[in-house]
């Protein structure tokens, strides 16, 4: 009898524990799904910011030596004049090749927990090397670029002064990352509004905010200061028909599948997103939730730039996403609601324009 009671007590404790855990995680989840003003960006302990390092990173960011043929710098696809995108559906490519994804903005990328649409890099430092060595982006050799930078006396001196070391690719990446962490939205109306300035948003934008948080369900994935859950979702965005059957595009997609050791890489028909990297079922055609900050300036949208306007994006979500997706359901937003939501996205989330003047390259 005593033993039976003990078992009951055990189950009651277990059940209560689970319940408390659930309530706790639910509360945590609820708490997370709020909008918040931008705090100062997180700075990694192993790459502290200094004005000299930021300036060096800025020079390297604009330096075409980082590409194999000397025609492309980071700024080519992350152009300050285009909100640090290139404004193209599919990002610009190394001559005679084709990229296969859209160039995301670098504004506020300091807050991202992973980099790239598929999250394959965890830090900006790690990210910086990828496009430099990618055959369809900058097509440069990392050992070679070290020497190309090291041969420039001004660079060599700067690296010694800032890092106390000779030029190497890891330090090049650190300097670029330090510069990129300065690209932050400033004084966006949403930040002023969240800090208490109730006049920072127009009435239409306030209505849009309510839709964002309510019927539109945008906040389910776009929350926190960065307006992203930093997760990966398979919304089944259609393939971009302009490129889907183009040879150069197919070459790049196959190449990506191949280097990720995808078994049937020659027959990959779609961009499988994070699945290429993880091979996990839940990552099949999943892409990172992008920030919505500065979204009015960063068209075209989605990982393949298939939507030219915010209206098209809102319509996509309103109809419940792409064919076969399990993440979204139709929203049934009226025309007025869609209009208000767009007003919120455009008006509230746009900070002051970042003025970055290209530096003198040594």
């Amino acid at each position: 009898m005593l033993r039976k009671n003990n078992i009951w007590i055990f189950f009651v404790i277990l059940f209560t524990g689970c319940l408390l855990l659930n309530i706790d995680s639910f509360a945590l989840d609820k708490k997370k799904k709020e909008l918040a003003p931008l705090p100062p960006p997180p700075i990694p302990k192993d790459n502290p910011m200094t004005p000299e390092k930021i300036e060096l990173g800025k020079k390297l960011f604009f330096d075409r030596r980082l590409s194999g043929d000397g025609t492309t710098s980071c700024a080519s696809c992350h152009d300050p004049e285009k909100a640090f995108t290139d404004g193209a559906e599919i990002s610009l490519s190394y001559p005679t090749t084709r990229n296969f994804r859209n160039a995301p903005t670098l504004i506020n990328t300091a807050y991202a927990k992973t980099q790239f649409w598929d999250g394959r890099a965890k830090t900006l430092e790690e990210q910086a090397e990828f496009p430099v060595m990618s055959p369809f982006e900058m097509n440069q050799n990392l050992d070679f670029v070290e020497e190309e930078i090291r041969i420039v006396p001004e660079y060599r001196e700067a690296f010694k002064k800032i890092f106390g070391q000779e030029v190497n690719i890891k330090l090049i990446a650190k300097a670029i990352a330090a510069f990129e962490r300065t690209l932050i939205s400033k004084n966006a109306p949403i930040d002023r509004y969240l800090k208490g300035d109730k006049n920072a948003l127009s009435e239409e934008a306030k209505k849009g905010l309510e839709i964002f948080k309510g019927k539109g369900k945008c906040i389910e994935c776009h929350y926190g200061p960065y307006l992203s859950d930093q997760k990966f979702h398979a919304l089944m965005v259609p393939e971009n028909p302009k490129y889907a059957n183009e040879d150069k595009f197919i070459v790049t997609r196959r190449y990506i599948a191949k280097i990720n050791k995808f078994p049937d890489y020659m027959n990959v028909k779609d961009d499988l997103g994070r699945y290429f990297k993880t091979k996990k079922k839940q990552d099949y055609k999943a892409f990172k939730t992008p920030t919505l900050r500065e979204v009015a300036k960063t068209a075209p949208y989605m990982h393949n730039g298939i939507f030219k306007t915010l209206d098209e994006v809102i319509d996509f979500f309103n109809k419940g996403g792409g064919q076969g997706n399990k993440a979204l359901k139709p929203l049934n937003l009226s025309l007025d609601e869609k209009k208000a939501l767009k007003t919120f996205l455009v008006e509230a989330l746009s900070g002051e324009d970042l003025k970055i003047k290209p530096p003198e390259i040594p």
Partner: protein
Amino acid sequence: MKLVIKFFPYKYRDYARIAAEAAVEAWRQGKFKEMHNLLIKKSPRLDRESLIQYARDLNLDVEKFTKAIDNFEGADIIERDLKLAKDLDLYVTPAFYINGLKVLGVRDYDYFKAIIMEELKNVKKK
């Protein structure tokens, strides 16, 4: 509307420079547009023999054409345009200026259409 084409042969392609020479000579013989379109259509088959065949296809004076591309007779024009690109800090090809708006890299029809329609609207307003 006015379209001006400048030469910017990509320095790391074997036939870019000779193809530019072919276009200059075709221009001198009054068939720049035809040669330009043919070069884009036939790229990357832009070796000397192919270019001579294209000149033949366009009914150009083939002897004059061959002499021109072999002797780099278009060099003054090509070098002038390369200098202009350098002065404008242009390294990417193709590069475009639409009423002063710089557009770099390969873009699709819709991209240009949107810009040009916007510019036309501004012209009408003026």
